[in-house]
């Protein structure tokens, strides 16, 4: 049986269908989850999709983190459930304190959509094990508040513990230390600013480099 991977839709989520499509293409069973429903329907992993939850007028992810589904998810994540937050999902994970730091307005103050080169820095998380360390991938970035910030101590700790999972090659937004994605200590929770779910088909993406995030977790869930 292929692993069941849930995608939580918040009011204002936009890339939820895309995340579901990516799960399917990677060989998993996509499961739609609703923010107001505390029941995660027994899924084996969860993706928090991109978008503008609640319009993101206050701070990205600030309101979404209070959703009933998030309450359940925070506990489940602490218990080891694999969770990937993409873009807005990354912001929600930071606001929920499942990941340290915060995402700030891009330093140039514009929304920026471009095909972005990343270097995979850690392959020891549930979501990156199908990549090679140092591998460069090309996936879309599209965000206005994508600059990762944290205090020096936190940044040093992230680096020391190998929790920076991907860095920008050519910093597009002022992220500190070129950070594009990080993980929690256990490696089950990952936040990533660019969008791997938009690089899964040659027809619609700049590459198919994004598939690895989804195949990684599926492999982690179905031991060979």
């Amino acid at each position, binding site marked *: 049986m292929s692993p069941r991977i849930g995608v939580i839709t918040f*009011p204002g989520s936009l890339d939820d269908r895309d995340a579901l*499509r990516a799960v399917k293409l990677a060989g998993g069973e996509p499961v739609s989850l609703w923010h107001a429903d505390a029941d995660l329907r027994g899924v084996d992993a969860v993706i928090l999709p991109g978008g*503008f939850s609640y*319009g993101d007028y206050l701070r990205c992810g600030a309101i979404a983190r209070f959703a009933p589904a998030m309450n359940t998810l925070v506990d489940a994540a602490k218990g080891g459930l694999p969770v990937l937050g993409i873009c807005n999902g990354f912001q929600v994970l930071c606001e929920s304190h499942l990941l340290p730091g915060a995402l700030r307005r891009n330093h140039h103050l*514009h929304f920026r959509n471009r095909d972005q080169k990343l270097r995979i820095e850690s392959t020891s998380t549930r979501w990156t094990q199908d990549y090679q360390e140092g591998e460069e991938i090309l996936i879309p970035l*599209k965000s206005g508040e994508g600059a990762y910030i944290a205090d020096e101590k936190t940044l040093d700790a992230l680096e020391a513990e190998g929790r920076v999972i991907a860095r920008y090659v050519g910093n597009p937004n002022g992220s500190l230390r070129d950070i594009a994605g990080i993980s929690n200590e256990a490696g089950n929770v990952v936040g990533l600013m660019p969008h791997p779910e*938009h690089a899964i088909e040659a027809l619609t993406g700049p590459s198919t480099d994004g598939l690895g995030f989804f195949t990684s977790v599926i492999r982690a869930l179905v031991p060979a």
Partner: protein
Amino acid sequence: MTDTVSQAQQSPDAEQPYLELGLKDDEYARIREVLGRRPTQTELAMYSIMWSEHCSYKSSKVHLRQFGEKAPKTDALLVGMGENAGVVDVGGGLAVTFKVESHNHPSFVEPYQGAATGVGGIVRDILTMGARPIAVMDPLRFGAPDHPDTARVLPGIVAGVGGYGNCLGLPNIGGEVVFDPCYQGNPLVNALCVGVMPHDRIQLSAARGVGNVVVLLGAKTGRDGIGGVSVLASATFEEGAETRRPSVQVGDPFAEKLLIESCLEMFDRKLVVGIQDLGGAGLTCATTETAAAGKSGMRVWLERVPLREPSMEPHEILASESQERMLAIVEPSKLDEVLALAAKWGVIATAIGEVTEGDRLVITWHDDVVVDVPPRSLSDEGPVYNRPIERPGDFDLVRADRAETLPRPKTGDELRETLLKLVASPNLADKTWVTEQYDRYVQGNTVLAQPEDAGVIRLDEETGRGIALATDGNGRYAKLDPYAGAQLALAEAYRNVATTGAAPLAVTNCLNFGSPEDPHVMWQFQQAVTGLADGCQQLGTPVTGGNVSFYNQTGSTAIHPTPVIGVLGVFDDVARRTPIGFQDDGESLILLGS
């Protein structure tokens, strides 16, 4: 106090500020004739809006008929002009609707919000047809790049287009950025939206079925953009005029996103009989048009409309241009389900009226009847003008300066210099600064977007069925020859679609012109419409919808006539698309045509 129908009957000679509201003497006389009495203040406001150029197309109607008269035969047309947007069959059980509209003047006043609400408005037009909006495009025109007004409006307009579209989750698959001094005091912000639906989800606006409930969905109503109608306030109320001034419309894309999702779920569950978006003329337009289309009457309890500002008067509520609202006609047995569904998405839904026997639109405010009109008199039987037309006196002079007489580069150095000049010119320069601010990936079906000449979207993941869209327009050509200029724009958009590999199917247009009261402008308009209608006839692609924007001028100087043409094409399989770039070494270059 609120002017009621019975007061209107008792005080037939009360003076009314119809001139200030933009109505002419004979138009006012006709209103009195239709009603058999003077209009109430609220009715007057409604007529002034619905009979405005913007809503009634009174100057353009006689010319736009050509699109219908010359329409080529096609089996693809499922819904023609007249509804909010035309709908075409693209095969595989799918239907596509698309339309381009202008939001020029609001964008000059407040660039960010003007552009944002322009996108929001056209998206609701598409949603109204039953379609899921799937992409947007934004043909833009600015003044000279180094002019201070351009520096003021361009960043705001681009951020507004992006801010609204990105937050809605609509990929931006193309557009235009053109600079020309003629747009200095009057930039053009045109916005196109395209949507897709299964055939059986097509919605119409008619309010049918006596006893059916009229439900207002979406944002609360505030004093947004009640421009001309504020005259009524200042004419009737001396004090407090300050708080009654109209305000700039602010867009709330999050509210619109929720409106989209809740409406689509209602369509899928077949919960609505008719639906109409609230655009420029707000509730006035939505109630009169739905009732007129349904050939029925309607009763509205206006005090039920949720207000942002409790002190609003009936005419203000009816004229408000608050964004992110829709009007649905619902069978009583399905009302609860509609309300529950709206609540699930956090959308305010309120039953404000019902469909009635007969052909009167009756609106009460608490216990007073403030409106009692035949809806068709507002929506369909407004004034129609055959305005004077005159070829501009300087037309031959302008055309005397021919391309052949311009100096040509002769030497290699001159050629090099010309090339560098061209490459550096703002109209040809790289548009990345603009396009990077737009999400082109969201929804995961974008096959081609910038820097391609046409956008391509996949509709069906199984079959690969999809569409291509391009918009083009050239005000300088159109100024030199409006007939040929419109055709050139059509031909360019048509070629841009065809070169991707798609078969062109239908046409939309946004006609940006100066004042229709200027016979020279009216001549340009008539020429452009004729050119476009003739061109569409020859190419076999019908015009399925569009928009006319008049009064684009600074003082008495009009912009160049700027017809912007959008062409839609179809693919059986988007995997066949051809991008503009070279794909491999050693490919041959072949020039087609002469």
